[in-house]
């Protein structure tokens, strides 16, 4: 384990490890094995690796056929193609018949960086959230990525795993219970809900707020579906405001999911912090976080404006 690693790298390594433990695991990629990091699996288990070429829709439907005879296929490409171009395959061939297919998509969010807006998926969570039978994981670091993968293998049915190109630092290790958010930090004034690359930023934000006398809790929502309604309701009762931060559009993401729960159960105000209904662009990832108001300082500023 290293201190700093991209979850796509952690995914590739964990997948190769799991391949040795479970011979039913097969992997499909669409000519991006060296970017999604499925190359580690490909090198170790070439007989169980299928390169579908640049044909995401066929890749996904072939995985449905492989799942039908007992394999556990992991399908990988970039999130923007894997959930966008592929949406109707995922809807009708994967989720509708509840096929045991795992969709592990990398390069999610604006932190893709220089490749720019065409490659930066800010809508994948929204697309996957609306599908019945779907489970959505978004791990925050290396250790959590392996745990999410193991959980995905245990689940009989579709799982979407959202992964990043950008590195994240190792966070304090916690249990991974699907559908149960982890409290990474207690706080008496407010709560920040984050997932993926935003968890470490939310923790930094909380440190900054502390220096200014605001004590913020941080929750890691590694599972976006099924949603941890219990934690949301508890926080809605405990705090006057909840903040959601995500490297995803504020339309259809965790923020709207949380706001939807709170609107029904009653409680506090929910402020959604994320990509404000616009596309990404080319820049270094850290520059993009600043430009889109998603670096720790910008998030702290937005929280202070509300409190």
């Amino acid at each position, binding site marked *: 384990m290293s201190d700093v690693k991209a979850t796509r790298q952690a995914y590739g390594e964990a997948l190769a490890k799991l391949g040795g433990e479970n011979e039913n695991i*097969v992997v499909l990629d669409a000519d991006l094995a060296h970017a999604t990091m499925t190359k580690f699996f490909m090198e170790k288990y070439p*007989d*169980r690796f*299928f390169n*579908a*070429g640049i*044909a995401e*829709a*066929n890749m*996904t*439907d*072939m*995985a*449905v*056929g*492989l*799942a*039908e*005879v*007992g*394999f556990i296929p992991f399908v990988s490409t970039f999130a923007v193609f894997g959930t966008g171009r592929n949406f*109707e*395959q995922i809807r*009708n*061939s994967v989720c*509708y*018949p*509840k096929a045991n297919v795992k969709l592990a998509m990398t390069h999610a969010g604006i932190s893709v960086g220089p490749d720019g807006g065409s490659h930066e998926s800010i809508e994948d969570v929204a697309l996957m959230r609306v599908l019945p039978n779907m489970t959505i994981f978004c791990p925050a670091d290396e250790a959590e990525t392996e745990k999410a993968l193991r959980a995905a293998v245990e689940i009989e049915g579709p799982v979407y795993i959202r992964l990043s190109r950008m590195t994240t630092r190792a966070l304090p290790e916690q249990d991974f219970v699907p559908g149960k958010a982890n409290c990474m930090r207690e706080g008496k004034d407010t709560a920040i809900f984050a997932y993926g690359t935003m968890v470490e930023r939310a923790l930094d934000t909380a440190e900054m707020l502390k220096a200014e006398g605001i004590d913020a809790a941080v929750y890691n929502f590694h599972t976006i579906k099924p949603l941890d309604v219990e934690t949301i309701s508890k926080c809605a009762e405990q705090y006057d405001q909840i903040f959601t931060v995500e490297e995803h559009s504020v339309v259809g993401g965790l923020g709207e999911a949380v706001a939807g729960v709170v609107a029904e159960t009653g409680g506090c105000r929910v402020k959604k912090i994320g990509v404000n209904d616009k596309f990404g662009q080319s820049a270094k990832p850290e520059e993009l976080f600043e430009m889109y108001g998603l670096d720790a300082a910008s998030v702290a500023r937005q929280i202070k404006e509300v409190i």
Partner: protein
Amino acid sequence: MLDISTESCKTLRKDILTMLHASGSGHAGGSLSCVEIMDALYGGILRIDPQNPKKPDRDYFVLSKGHAAPALYAALAEREFFPKEELLTLRKAGSHLQGHPDKNKVPGVDMTTGSLGQGISIATGLALGTRAKGYDSRVYVLTGDGELQEGLCWEAAMAAANYKLSNLTLIVDWNGLQIDGPNEEVMNLGDLGAKFRAFGFEVCEIDGNDLDQVVKALSAPAGDKPRCVLAHTVKGKGVSFYENQVGSHGAVPNDEQFEKAMKEIG
């Protein structure tokens, strides 16, 4: 043992019309055009067991043109995968027999389909998967002609040839008509034989409503390439007022038409 005959084809046609008449909705034209193909497959070509429909090393059939579900249901009921009385529940609330096939609801349905093009890809995955498992399974997939306008079909064809899936047989129910008109008017399919050959398939062309030709083509031993059977059929086959009619795609017989059609089939 082959249990395939013009008599059983008649039964399937009558069952299809009975189902559509009872449900008041469904697709007559494309269900009637593929009757000989369905009768041949379920009458003995597929190595399947109604008592054990999920046996992993069986043969597989994917109805990629899922709107022909009545033909599949009729064939399955005829081979006792489920009681024939259920056919009358087609498309009704609570029925197992959905408008398009659902593998989780109907014994013997190998794959959930309905969105055109996807079944061909899934069948390619099944062929790849059964071979990887070491099974001696053959995988058959039936597509419509208009369906081949979906780009996904050609992604799947490329993959099937790439992986040398000689256990895969793709059957095209080539009745020449689709919802908005003849294929040539909507989007010309061109020379399908040349296209599939160029993609790396072994291609044969048959009269898809001639039972002997169908049985011969579908029971031929696998070669070393995926196979494409271009089955020329008549949309609405067996019912005079449906045959070769564009409008027969989503047609359902009223009482009078039902009587007439049942008499014609005999």
